[in-house]
């Protein structure tokens, strides 16, 4: 896998903590490997929208990576419920179904971004940096640019 500069939290320099939500274990493992290659830490995983809400309350991650098509509760509904309770939540939808209605619906209900599967690590890396904004920093970036 490509080498990425570690993305840390600006406020304390700690790894960015992720909640990974997907009904596929395969997809969760793949995403976990990617975020770990970005210097992140998996705070928790969930296989459906209902568990995602519970896990968000329990772990308060910096970023949620959320699938859309899942059993029990779909990702867009779960995202809406999380954002309603926690407006600061940063949720990135990750789905193989990337048509405009889905994207617009997700963004209207509080998701910050959308990444289509199969996920390219370099795309997810850029999206994470964008979504974190000033709350994230690439380790060594300041000195590298100096």
């Amino acid at each position: 896998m490509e080498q990425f500069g570690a993305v840390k939290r600006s406020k304390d320099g700690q790894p960015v903590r992720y909640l990974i939500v997907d009904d596929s274990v395969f997809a969760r493992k793949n995403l976990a490997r990617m975020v770990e290659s970005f210097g992140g830490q998996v705070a928790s995983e969930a296989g459906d929208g209902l568990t995602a809400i519970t896990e968000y309350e329990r772990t308060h991650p910096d970023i949620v990576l959320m699938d859309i098509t899942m059993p029990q509760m779909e990702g867009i509904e779960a995202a809406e419920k999380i954002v309603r309770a926690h407006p600061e939540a940063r949720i990135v939808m990750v789905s193989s179904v990337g048509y405009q209605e889905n994207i617009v619906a997700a963004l209207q209900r509080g998701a910050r971004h959308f990444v289509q599967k199969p996920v390219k690590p370099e795309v997810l890396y850029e999206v994470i940096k964008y979504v974190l904004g000033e709350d994230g920093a690439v380790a060594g970036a300041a000195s590298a640019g100096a």
Partner: protein
Amino acid sequence: MKMELIQPFINAADAVLAQGLQCSTSVGHLSMEEEAYRRHGVAAEIYLTGDIEGRIILDLAPETAVRVASHYAGAEVPESDDLVRETVCELANQITGNAVTALNDQGFHFRVHPPVLHTSEHGAKSSEDTEALVMSFETERGNMFMNIALRYNRRRQSERAAVVGQ
């Protein structure tokens, strides 16, 4: 079954498999299925509902499924591991999702249901209004089979025509 329904699945499978397996793929055998579906090995089935209805099955011989799962996992995965079946389900999900995205751009609306493992040896025989097309994709990890049975939802089509005609 019209080619306009099939081509997005061929394109999506080509893109998903080429990216995931990091190798080139080519479409091998392609035919209309006359008999009932017969499973090759590890098979994942996805149902579509909406303007077009039906199902897609991605089917890999057991040894191919193990090779593909091991490639994605970055380590040898035994055939008994759930990850082998998970991998086939997720690949079916990605191929279908990407194809449906392209069809949506052509004006078709769907609901994609989560993948389920196809565990029986046989499936339903194709019917007059739901023909099944079988195609194989040749890759360095082995051949992968896709069985597509879709039909236009006539009720949804007539509703759309009525709206357009107003």
